């Protein structure tokens, strides 16, 4: 599904990603871990097409298509979804209206008519139940005055609505208490299928107890320095990142 080959990217000449190689197949869950500043969030943003970052070398290919020239919205239309670490507040635009706009813009890009209102409402109801979101929440302004947990739950609700092929969860566990974490993880697990894939970006192993990864990668100084099975996450939790750093130097 996703194939990243020798990816170099940075901001204003500062290289942050230093030759990333990663392949994610349909049905897989990958976890990308690493210390602060290792380039985890940059990788997520580059896959989603954030213009601030310049790709200097290498390719990001989704289902055989090079994404280099694709704007963020085009990547979204092709099935990429990024759950933000810090979702942005949009006053005056309700969660419902925002989702209507997002879904209908995606449909427009695919040459489809707007989704009929009753179908939209049904979809919203289904997906909000999946994430234990109550009605009142949906008529609030997007992310405005939301608690950390509400913001993250809302991100996963958007993911559920948009049904992406590849979901990237950037530090979705940060700021969540254990109940919210369980709800969010549950939602992600229910949305998972053999046809889609998930990349979980996290500093801690906590979320991985609920969403079990097929592969764990460790990012250090813009490179994947170690890959392994889910056991690697436990090892990192126990030993910290220093032994990886040392290993990388050797």
């Amino acid at each position, binding site marked *: 599904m996703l194939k990243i080959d020798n990816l170099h990217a940075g901001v204003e000449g500062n290289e942050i990603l230093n030759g990333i190689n990663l392949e994610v197949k349909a049905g897989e869950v990958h976890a990308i871990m690493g210390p602060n500043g290792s380039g985890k969030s940059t990788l997520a943003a580059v896959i989603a097409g954030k213009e601030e970052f310049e790709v200097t070398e290498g390719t990001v290919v989704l289902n055989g298509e090079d994404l280099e020239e694709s*704007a*963020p*919205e085009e990547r979204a239309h092709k099935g990429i979804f990024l759950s933000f670490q*810090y979702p942005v507040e949009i006053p005056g635009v309700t969660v419902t209206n925002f989702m209507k706009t997002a879904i209908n*813009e995606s449909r427009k890009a695919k040459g489809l008519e707007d989704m009929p209102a009753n179908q939209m409402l049904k979809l919203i109801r289904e997906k909000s139940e999946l994430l234990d979101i109550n009605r009142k929440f949906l008529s609030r302004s997007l992310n405005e005055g939301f608690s950390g947990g509400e913001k993250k739950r809302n991100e996963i609700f*958007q993911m559920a609505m948009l049904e992406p092929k590849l979901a990237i969860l950037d530090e979705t566990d940060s700021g969540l208490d254990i109940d919210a974490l369980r709800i969010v993880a549950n939602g992600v697990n229910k949305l998972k299928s053999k046809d889609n894939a998930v990349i979980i970006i996290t500093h801690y192993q906590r979320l991985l107890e609920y969403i079990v990864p097929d592969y764990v990668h460790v990012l250090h100084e813009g490179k994947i320095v170690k890959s392994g099975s889910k056991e690697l996450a436990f090892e990192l939790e126990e030993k910290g990142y220093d032994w990886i750093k040392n290993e990388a130097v050797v």
Partner: protein
Amino acid sequence: MAFESNVDIDHPVHDVRVEAMKNFEMKGFPNKKLEAWKYTSLNSLQKVDFSIFPKEVNALEYKDVKKYFLHEMDTYKIVFVDGIYSSFLSETTHDGVDICLMSSALTKPMYKPVIDVYFNKVASNDESLTTLNTAFSREGAYIYIPKNKMPKKPVEIVHFATGNEASLMLQPRNLIVVEENAELQIIERHQSLTSNEVLTNCVTEIYAATNAIVDYYKVQNDTASSSLIDNTYINQKNKSVVKVHTFAFGGKLTRNNLNFYQNGEYIDSTMKGVTILGEKQHVDHHTLVHHIEPNCESHQDYKGIYGENSTGVFNGKIIVDKVAQKTNAFQQNNNILISDKATINTKPQLEIFADDVKCSHGCTIGQLDEEALFYLQSRGIPKKEARALLMYAFANNVLESVRIPELKTRINKLIAKKLGVSLGFDL
């Protein structure tokens, strides 16, 4: 002479007018050397040979101008065509409240007590353009809401210019008196119907007595050949609440002089504005709040979105007198420049003589938040629509205080239209 045809020579207004004429002759048009007119030049307007009184009356069909009214709901209407009252388009009333014409209020004896007390009392005799209006004005809206009354519906004051004259100068004069515990909602609009030049120099005096509530909405969405100088003076008494919303969406040159005088305690004065400009349009918002008595509040919130070669000015002056302790005065002016060639000059002016007050002011000038833009795009919303959505969100909180839902919807749609996109949902 303006009122001459309507007012006999012994009427007090005659003297007021002669005095005003003298003042104007002395001062002339304001120029850029004056601090208050530093960023707004009337030079090009002064070169135009305006006719002050149109030669003939032009009739308009309601169906042709319907869209300029808030026709989604029932309203009282005071309508002028080229400065002359159109009874055909208007709906006035004397049923418990007076919603009618300035010219009749000035001539009929029954209105004399009100005219004597209120006419040209809060309007400044130092502002040359106000005195010009006082000297030459012949018509406008007269609204008197007695104690404990509230009109059944909002009042629309609409001025049309039909282009009868190559260039026309209008001098509307409104007097609005809202007595104790009374309430009033007004929507004002100036609309040119052709590309001929129009300059409107409007003066509105508003008196809000104890506990009165006044909502005033100014919809400024005129053509590229129309200029407006709006001079609004508001005198408030104890516990009155007056809110003025200014929606500046168009016109060649617009100058809003909005002046609040708090002559009582526990008064609330609110000024809100949304400005969305393009082309070479110019808007200058000059606000003044004079806190004269203790325990009052004022709130100012102006948002501006400037594109193309447009220019904007926000100058907010707050004066807190020495006795006006426990004053709360808030002022906020936020701007987004969406073109390299657009400019905004924003300036708070605080003169505080009391020591126990809360005053805050802030102004920002910025571009759209890139992170927010990326967020929306990553949800599949194209850049253009995402920008519009963000600008809409930016302007939105100003609309929260609009108390006429039909008007709010209308303004929402106008904003969406100004931003050049149809958003994917009903506003």
